[in-house]
């Protein structure tokens, strides 16, 4: 690590994190990870690798069996509400629990204790950031999949988190909505972590990739290098993205 980086405080610092679900088997074993401001990290790995579990740990929803998590210099405590960390859940229906879009986006800011005017301003800002201003008065359950995804992202951005975590944001989207999401992530200035099985998406939006398997980080570095490494990828149930494969068929 260069001396320059040491001056900047990491956004996220995980050291020696272990976790087991009550039923016993260990899901995370000794995870160490440091994310610097401006880094946009892709987290890849097979089903059950522990990606979602890791995210829930970072947000303080689950209590680590061992190890520490520090976000922006402050340790994450179990059950704490940390508006500076925002988690976008894999299934937007889990996250859009308020009956209308406005209520949903306002939920986080309201719980931060902001005034009504401030909340309203946040709602407008977040919805326009994701290009969903038109939806503000719609009931959450009548949105299309792509719209739901955008609104659930707005609900998180409205808290102005400094670290945003996306759990499989590309799932269930059609090609148009997926492209819109990629644009949004590419334009985003926040530090973020994104877990995805859609490696092309990771390749387009991330400047760093972490490969996780069975609760351990097995590779960490440049996206093209890691995803281009056939041996590594195959050993962990991944496939090299098509855009990194030489062509058999002439165009």
């Amino acid at each position, binding site marked *: 690590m260069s001396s320059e980086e040491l001056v900047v405080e990491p956004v996220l610092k995980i050291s020696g994190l272990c976790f087991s679900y009550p039923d016993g088997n260990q899901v995370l074993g000794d995870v160490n990870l440091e994310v610097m401001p401006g880094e946009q990290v892709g987290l890849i790995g097979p089903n059950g690798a522990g990606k979602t579990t890791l995210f829930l740990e970072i947000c303080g*929803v689950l209590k680590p069996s061992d190890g520490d998590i520090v976000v922006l210099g402050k340790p994450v405590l179990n059950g704490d509400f940390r508006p500076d960390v925002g988690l976008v859940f894999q299934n937007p229906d*889990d996250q*859009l629990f308020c009956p209308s879009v406005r209520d949903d986006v306002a939920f986080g800011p309201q719980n931060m*204790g902001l005034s009504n005017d401030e*909340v309203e301003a946040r709602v407008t800002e977040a919805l326009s950031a994701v290009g969903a201003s038109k939806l503000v008065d719609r009931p959450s359950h009548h949105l299309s999949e792509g719209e739901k995804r955008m609104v659930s992202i707005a609900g998180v951005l409205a808290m102005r988190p400094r670290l945003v975590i996306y759990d499989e944001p590309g799932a269930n989207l059609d090609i148009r909505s997926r492209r819109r999401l990629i644009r949004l992530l590419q334009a985003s200035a926040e530090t973020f972590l994104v877990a995805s099985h859609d490696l092309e998406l990771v390749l387009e939006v991330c400047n760093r990739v972490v490969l996780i398997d069975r609760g351990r980080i097995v590779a960490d570095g440049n996206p093209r290098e890691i995803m281009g490494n056939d041996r590594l990828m195959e050993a962990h149930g991944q496939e090299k993205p098509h855009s990194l494969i030489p062509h058999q068929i002439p165009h």
Partner: protein
Amino acid sequence: MNFGIDEYIHLGSPFHRWDPRFKLIGLMALIFAFSFVQDLRMLPAMVLVTALVYGISRLPVSFMLTRLRYQSFFLLAVVVLLPFLSGQTVVASIGPLDLRQEGLVAVLLIATRFLCILTVGLVMFGTASFLTTLKAMRALGLPAILTDMALLAFRYLDEIGGYLHRMETAMRLRGFRGRRLSPHGLGVLAWLGGSILVRSYERSEWVYKAMITRGYGHAKPARGEFQACTADVVALGLTLLIVAGFVAGEVLI
């Protein structure tokens, strides 16, 4: 999935504009005043007030007629049975059955009260979105546990209804015909019901996680969603006057 109850919330009548909190109080009081009516002579006034309310609300008559359908069985049973079963004063006999006066009066009262209350209820819930109504109830001080639960249940009703719909389709496409009552058939339906409960339970665990990451329970949601103006208060006053009229009429007559 609110079954079209908010189909006409955009009509923009005075009832649509009335502050939902005041509307709830006013119309609930009116409904209770109706159920208080025991005297036949009060019925024309009741019908008149109901017609006025429904007219002002601009809801189409067809809306009321379709809604009436759901309850008509019970009403029919009452209308058919009561005149024969209730009371002592026989006014006519049809074969072995005696038509009794008290029963007839009761039927008239019940049917009118039923129709009027139903109609006013439709105005109460058909002129604002169901969500707005629930929020108005919260603003009126209903316990948080009830309104939180109602809001969440309302949000997920559609979705869980979708589970049922798709699972029933999937069962049908694999040849299940639940037309006969058999132990196996009932068992399969219980699996269906159980699966819906399990899926909903799992969903609720995720919803809870999503709620706490956004600070659920950290601050009471700011109130002040509704702002009443003078007209709202005047309308409530008027309604309560009518209510008082009914009560007074009933007591004095």
